[in-house]
Each structure stands twice: as C-alpha cells, then as structure tokens.
C-alpha cells in the first residue's frame, strides 16, 4: 500500500464520484515472495494461538522453512520470467521495484534466512533439561532471569516458538527493504524488520541480562536512527514534493522544473535535499554498521542469541546495502558529487576502524562484530564505485559474505561450556587438538573473512576493489588493502589460538549438533569454497542482475 495509491483515491473521491472506488492495482504475483513470507508469519501467530504447545515447535519450523523455500522458489520463478532483466519494472503503483538487484538480494536474503532458521531450530546443543529438548532461546521471555517463574518455565519445558514468526516478519521486511521504491515503503520496511529483531535480541536462554541489555541498546539506538531517517524523508519530501524515487530523482537531476512559484521556499531547495539525503544515508549506514554509526554492533552481536546474531549479521546487512545501493544509484545519482566524498570518508574510517579495533578483542562474537564492520567498509568501497561493476560486485560480495557469516556464528554455537557458549577467546585455545574438524571449518571461515585466495572472501574483495579502482577510487583500494592486512592479523590470531596453543584442562567441549546446524555450516563451507574457486556463474548472475529499474 503506498501513499500515491491513497492519493489517487482521495482525488477521485474529491471529484464527487463516490459511487465507485477504483481498487489500487497490485501485481500480486510479482510481490509473491514477500506476500508468502508475511502470510506464513501471520499463520505462525495463529499457530502460537491454537496449536498445542508440544507440537508448536515442529509446526513452526516446518511452516517457516516451507514458506521461505516457497518464497525463494517464487523469486527464482520471477527471475526466470525475466523480471530481473527485461521485464523489470515498478510494481504496486510505484511502491515496489521488481528488478535485478531486488530479486538477487531477495534470493540471497531468503537462502540466508533458511540457513539461519535451521540454526534457530537447533535443539541438541544444550543438555536436555527436565526431559525437554531446549533451543537457544529463553523458556519464557516474560519471566525474570533467575526467578522462580523462569525455573518453573524451564521445568515445564516452555520454549519461545514465537521466534519463528518474528523471524518471518523480519524477513518480510528485509525483502521489501531493498526493493522499496518510495521513501515511505522504505521506512515502513525498515521498521517491519527492525522491531522483530529488537525482540529476538532479548530472547537468549543463557546470559539473559546481556541479552536484554543488547535488546535495549539496539532498540533505543535503532529508534533514534530511524527517527533521523524519517526526518530525512520528510525533508526530501519537502524538497521534491513526493516520496517516490522516480520523482525525487527527476527533481534532483533538474529535469522537472519548479512549476509553482509559491513553492520557491521548498521545491528544489538544495539545503533540504542535502540535509535530507544525509539523514537518510545516516539511517541506512546505521543498519549497515558503518563507522561512526557502528557502536551498537559489538554489544548487540555479543548479547543477542548467537543464531540471531548470525541472522542479523547476514540478512540485515544484505537488506540495508540493497536499500543503500538503490537510494544512491536511483534517487541520488544526480548529486553523486555531493555524497561521494562523504561516503569516501565513511568507507575509509569504517575499514580502518573496524580492523584496528578488532585486534584487541577478546570475545569471539565481538571480534566477528568488528570484522563485520570492516567488511561493511569494503562493501562501501564497491558502492562508491558508481558504475555497473560497482552494483554487481556489491551484490556478489553480499551473497558471499552472508553465508560465511552465518556459518561462522553457527560454529560459535557449538563451542560450549557450563555457562553456555564459550565465547571468550582464551577458551578456544587448542580447539584444533580437541576437534580438528570444527577448528578446520572455522579456520576456513576466518580465512574467507581475511580474503585469502580460493575462498569466497577473496573473490568478493577482489570484485569490489576492482570496481572501486575502475571507478577511480584507487586510494580506497590502497586503504582497503592496508586494512585487510591489519584485519588478517586478528583472524590469524584466532587460528594460532586454535591450532598452535596447548588446550586448557577446563576447556570447552564441542557439542555435536543436529543435521540442522550441520547443514547451516556445510552450506557455509560449500558456498565459501565454490565462490572462491569457480565464482564465474554467480558473477554473471550478479552482473545480469546489476541494473536498477527507474
């Protein structure tokens, strides 16, 4: 539902012909992916309401996986139907763009989400409590940590199966986010996927205080940033008199002349444009986790339940970068001379800041958080390229990165001691001796993060740096190279810890996961290696998908 649709309703009514209200024209088929997921989410809530507790888990998992798979099938169908390339157009009365980048990113998000849902559903890591299998989510979110009610809930074997519908809602938001074609949809989508994430962050089974703290921080800062975003939208609306990308783009590029002298104060007032644009950028950079809007990332990543962290780290980034790309390439290309220098600065401090601060981290989840910040910087370098390769390389990078991330966090869930996951690095000493396989897999992910050749990390990095260089951002490439060198140091530190240092006596044990997590990890490894060794097919895909519809 978009504002312009409503607008048209109003105008027709004003002409007094109240007898017939023209229904807005919605291409349901082309919105199928989103609709399927939303529908599944709603059904999921009903399930919570009506299905008996013991079978909820299975129903929910089944439902969400099927829904996501179906949605992915729909995406593939659309892409096959040529909506990614030739038939790309704006659907839902200008609210949603159905084009290459949108479909590519939706596909990526959906696949990542399926894997993430697998990790959500993992129930073998924790020891069976009172005869009930337990997952990594709080038995009863409402009960106070350590209180009797919580104990009772655990005893009763409650599980927070709401996480699945919540996740589905978030996913639906993420699906819309990169394809939103007007600022309102953008904002709504942002909130739709943010709010459930805030909740998911608060639902950790262990270390609940940290989990709640993470949620609060994430929520407050998120709301804060979305307020900025919204104000930016307002200003842009004031500037262009519309929130639809196309119109704004036209006004920015000056192809639409100022018709009404009465609007001289606002229409085409560059101050509005610049400030508004900057504020929207800020809102998106927050989600991306770019310096200086990154500070929520480490805390939230650390506090949130690890499966959620993986999900956020992967899917949110994809969605946010999608939106960022569309905004910069569709709405604001006309003012690229204004935002490019700014983005340069942001990219540089993001790359360096993330890499440098990560060096001294002692918690594996925080470490990965900072590494994700550094990677955001690398992707930004590709975004700045402002050429076709820029788009495709970013798409490719996002695809490669998301799977590595989920895989890495999935491995983190396996390493456990009495207090749940053993995330402190010192606990990881000598892991390579205890369970070579897990350590080796994690090493593969780390090497991919570090961008060692023959891993997806390298292909992606090469792609974005190449695009950046071709886009005349050679300096960025150099900075990127330097910061990757710095980053390499802490990835290697972890490997050294795992393989070359003697295992501690009271070291953590490595839980043997169910096929669910195994799949998640397996997919991660597979994608890492395939995209590392033979990336051509996916590069082609990203290439053919690399055109925005206007």
């Amino acid at each position: 539902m978009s504002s312009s649709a409503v607008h048209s309703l109003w105008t027709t009514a004003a002409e007094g012909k109240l007898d017939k209200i023209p229904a807005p024209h919605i291409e349901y088929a082309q919105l199928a992916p989103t609709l399927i997921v939303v529908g599944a989410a709603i059904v999921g809530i009903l399930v919570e309401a009506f299905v008996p507790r013991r079978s909820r888990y299975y129903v929910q998992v089944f439902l969400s996986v099927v829904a996501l798979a179906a949605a992915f099938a729909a995406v593939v169908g659309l892409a096959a139907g040529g909506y990614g390339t030739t038939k790309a157009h704006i659907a839902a009365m200008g609210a949603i763009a159905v084009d290459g980048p949108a479909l590519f990113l939706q596909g990526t998000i959906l696949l990542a989400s399926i894997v993430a849902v697998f990790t959500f559903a993992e129930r073998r890591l924790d020891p069976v409590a009172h005869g009930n299998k337990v997952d990594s989510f709080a038995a009863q979110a409402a009960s106070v940590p350590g209180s009797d009610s919580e104990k009772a809930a655990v005893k009763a074997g409650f599980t927070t199966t709401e996480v699945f519908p919540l996740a589905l809602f978030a996913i639906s938001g993420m699906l819309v986010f990169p394809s939103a074609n007007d600022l309102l949809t953008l904002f709504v989508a942002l909130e739709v996927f943010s709010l459930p994430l805030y909740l998911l962050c608060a639902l950790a089974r262990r270390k609940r205080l940290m989990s709640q703290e993470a949620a609060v921080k994430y929520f407050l800062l998120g709301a804060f940033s979305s307020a900025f975003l919204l104000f930016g939208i307002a200003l842009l609306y004031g500037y262009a008199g519309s929130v639809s990308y196309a119109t704004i783009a036209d006004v920015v590029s000056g192809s639409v002349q100022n018709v009404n002298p009465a609007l001289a104060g606002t229409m085409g007032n560059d101050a509005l444009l610049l400030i508004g644009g900057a504020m929207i950028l800020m809102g998106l950079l927050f989600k991306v986790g770019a310096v200086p809007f990154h500070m929520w990332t480490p805390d939230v990543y650390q506090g949130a339940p690890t499966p959620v962290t993986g999900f956020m780290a992967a899917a949110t980034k994809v969605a946010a970068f999608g939106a960022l790309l569309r905004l910069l390439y569709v709405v604001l290309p006309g003012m690229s001379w204004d935002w490019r220098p700014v983005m340069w600065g942001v990219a540089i401090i993001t790359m360096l800041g993330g890499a440098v601060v990560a060096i001294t981290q002692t918690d594996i989840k925080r470490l990965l958080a900072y590494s994700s910040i550094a990677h955001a910087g690398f992707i930004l370098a590709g975004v700045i390229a402002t050429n076709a390769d820029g788009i495709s390389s970013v798409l490719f990078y996002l695809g490669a990165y998301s799977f590595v991330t989920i895989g890495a966090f999935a491995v983190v869930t396996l390493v456990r001691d009495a207090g749940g996951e053993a995330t402190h690095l010192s606990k990881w000493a000598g892991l390579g001796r205890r369970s070579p396989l897990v350590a080796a897999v994690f090493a593969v992910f780390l090497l991919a993060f570090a961008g060692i050749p023959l891993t997806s990390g390298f292909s992606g990095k090469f792609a974005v740096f190449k695009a950046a260089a071709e886009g005349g951002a050679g300096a960025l490439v150099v900075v990127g190279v330097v910061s990757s060198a710095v980053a390499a140091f802490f990835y290697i530190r972890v490997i050294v810890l795992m393989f070359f240092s003697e295992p501690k006596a009271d070291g953590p044990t490595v839980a043997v996961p169910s096929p669910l997590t195994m799949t998640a990890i397996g997919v991660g490894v597979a994608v890492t290696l395939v995209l590392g060794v033979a990336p051509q097919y996916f590069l082609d895909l990203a290439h053919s998908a690399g055109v925005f519809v206007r």
Partner: protein
Amino acid sequence: MSFPLLTATAALPALGAIATAAVPAARRTAAKWLALLVSVATLALAAIQLVRFEPGGDRYQLTESHAWIKDFGVRYELGVDGIGVALIGLTALLIPFIIAAGWHDADPLETNSSRWRPTQGFFALILAVEAMVVLSFEATDVFLFYILFEAMLIPMYFLIGGFGDRAHAQGDEAAATQRSYAAVKFLLYNLVGGLIMLAAVIGLYVVAGSFSLSEIAAARASGSLHMATNTERLLFLGFFFAFAVKAPLWPLHTWLPNAMGEATAPVAVLITAVVDKVGTFAMLRFCLQLFPEASKWATPVIVVLAVISIIYGALLAVGQRDIKRLVAYASISHFGFIIMGIFAMTSQGQSGATLYMINHGISTAALMLVAGFLISRRGSRLISDYGGVQKVAPVLAGTFLIGGLATLSLPGLAPFVSEFLVLVGTFSRYPVAGVIATLGIVLAALYVLVLYQRTMTGPVKAEVQGMPDLKVRELLVVAPLIALLIFLGVYPKPLTDIVNPAVRQTMSDVQKKDPNPVVEAAK
C-alpha cells in the same frame, strides 16, 4: 586436445594431499608411503615435462588455456618456459627427499589421541605446498599466479607453526610460543606483501584490461597498451615488494631466520629451497616482463639492496649460535646473489640466477637435511653443544662438510657455476657491486668452516659420545643430492641448454644487450 601434462603435474600432488589427509589415524605409516609414492610419481611427470620441452621451441610450451573467471578477465592459462620447467624439476625432485627426511618428524608424541592426526596432516600439507608451487611456476596468468602465491602461505603456515623442531633449547612451552611467533611472522610478512601486490594486480587489470602474460605482451608489442611511466613504476613496486618479501631481500628478511629456525629441517628446506624460489622466479617472469621500463629504472637500487643482502646475510651467519638460523642467514646471502643476477640485466647474470635458484635449492637441502639429522640426534640447535662429531659419525660429518662446501660454492660443485656467472654478469655492468659481492665468497668460507670446525672437529664432547652415524634412510636422502651437486658442478650443460633461450627472451623483454668486451679476443 592433448593430455594436460602441466595440470596433471600439479593435480597429482593435490589429490595426493587429500588422499593422505584421509588416511585413518592408526595407519600413519601408510600415509607416509602414500605421500612418498605420490611425490615420486610427480617427479616422473616433471621429468616428462623436461623431456617434452624443446629448448629451441616457443617461449611457452605445453600450454593449456581455459576460461575461468570472465568477469575478472582471468583465464586458467598454463605454460612453461625453460626457467619454469627447470624449477618445476627442482621442486618435484626435492619433495621426495623432504618427505623421506621428515619421515619421523610428525609422529605424534602421545599415541592415544585418536582424532588428532598430525602425521597425515604433515605430509598432506607438504604435498599441498608442492601442488601450489608447481602450478605457480606454470601459471602464465598473473591472477592465477597471484592466487597461488597467496594460497600457498596457508599450508606453509601450518607446517611451520604446527610441526616445530622438537629439539629446542628452552623446553616445549617456549618452543610452542616461539614456533607460533615464527609462523605468524612468516604469514603476516608474506600476507602484507601479497596484499600490496593485490592492489598492484588490480591496478594492472585497470591499465591492461587483461591478466594473460601473452595478451599483455602482445598489446605491448602492438603498442595498443601503453603504461604511463609513473603507473608502471607504482605497479612494479607493488609486485616487487611482494616478491622481495618472499625472496627474501634485505631488509624484508627477518621472517626467514625465525621460520627456518623453528620449523623442522625438512620444512625449512621446503621454505628456502622451494617456496622462496617462487619469489625470485616471479621477479624474472613478471617484474621484468610486465614492467621492463620500471625494472630498468629500479635496477640500481635493487642491485644495491642485493649486495647488502649478500654481505649482511653472510656477516650475520657468522654471528649465529644456532645451526639452522646460520643456514637461514646464509640463504639470505644467496638470495642476494640471485636477485643481483636477475637485475644485472645481462645474459650471464640471469642464466646464473636461474641456475643459482636450482643449485641453491639442492645445496641448502643437502646441508640443512644433514643438519637436521645431526640436531635430531643431539636434541639441540646450538653450535656450542657439539664438537668432535667427525670422530664418532664420520659419514655424517663428511656429508655435512660437502653440503657446506657447496654452500661456500667450491668449484667443482654446482653452486660455483651459478655464483660465478652471477658475479661475472653483474661485474660486466656494475663492477663495484661485482667486486663487493665477491667479498661474500670469503665470508661464506668463514661461516661454513667455523660451523664445521665448532661442530665436527676438536675433542669429542661428552653428549656427542656414542652418537650414531647416518642411517640408511638418511644416507639415501643425502647421497643423491650430493651426487647431483657434483654432476651439475662438472656438467651443467643440460641445464643451461634449457635455460638459455628463456633468458634470451627475458633479455629481449627488457631490451637490454650484454656489454661488449673492450678488446675483441684474439681468436
């Protein structure tokens, strides 16, 4: 489509590595034999390459070319010139000896651990390194080469850090820390070099729009590709830096002594005799060929650095207390010779450098492996812990001496030929550098003979008493190397015949002519 010999030569050890790693924990010996078998088979393939290679023929032979990553303009392009095929021969030749020499280096100390399989890992990693090194010698696509150049760091890193020298002065704890320090140092140095090269690689693509050596050369020839002077220089520096770290060239050398000191002797040989050669090889193939002008521009500086390496490395070798570190610094000195020969831009210099790569590989292998045997017997790397070994283990001492004499490039042994060629080649263009470098041969004599005197001669030390002489396995490892040293010293012609045409090509790449003699010889 003929049999892809080059791919096979690299694929065989790669598969062998996987197979070896898959051998169950209990069957350690099986893994060892499998690895040895594979390496020997690889040697056979390499030999076939040498046979199939026609010195007079095209520049790159046995070529293969397949599309790989279109978007990056990357093709899977292989081909060998004389230098490449010779170095592949060296690699394939040394690996079996390395494996045989390291036969017991990775036997697990605690046998009960079932999942932890160091032995399999050790030999698998060695084979993996061989595969990557071989392929990097074959790659005629810059990107493909770069990928291997970087990727081979990882197995090397695990070999250094994971399988350290059991003979350590300050106990296991210190050993572990020092080992991982050495491994990390190795990786970071080379990774930084590689990343800087990555920037240059990307730059090259932006400039040339292709990674294929042949295409770039063609574009250059047709004039369609013209690099601005500064661009070319920057790119050259990016490439050269990475290679200089790998080679290693002063002052980027400090990772080598740590790595060679902490690693087991066979791995140390792998580092200095095989992996580092990729660096010098790449200087010849990529720096000179892609950036001839910039190479000429940088030559004076590089020659100076090389001379410093020669003298500096030798002097530090003299000052070492640790046998393996001594050999490491000696290698630094020798790499100085190689690099000097490459950038002297004379036929003699470059042929000499190429021969040097091979001879240095063999001679260091001989010396280092024997040193390894010695160390494993006494359990110490300190020179001062030895003395009078010659009395109790004459064969060991003898082989050690021969290895040493090769290191000081005694005439009649292979290294002499190459060293003299390098010196002559340099002298004819940079007399001063040539003369200073010649000082190196005196210093070489100094550190080798001091090492021999302190360890082998004099009254027999109590700890050395009853030290066993070389076992059959060990003798089988050393004897062929020594035989080869003598043969190549007396009759290097087969090698030079392969190398010369390639050198001629490189010389024409950089458009340099050898300086003519002042007086035409009275024929």
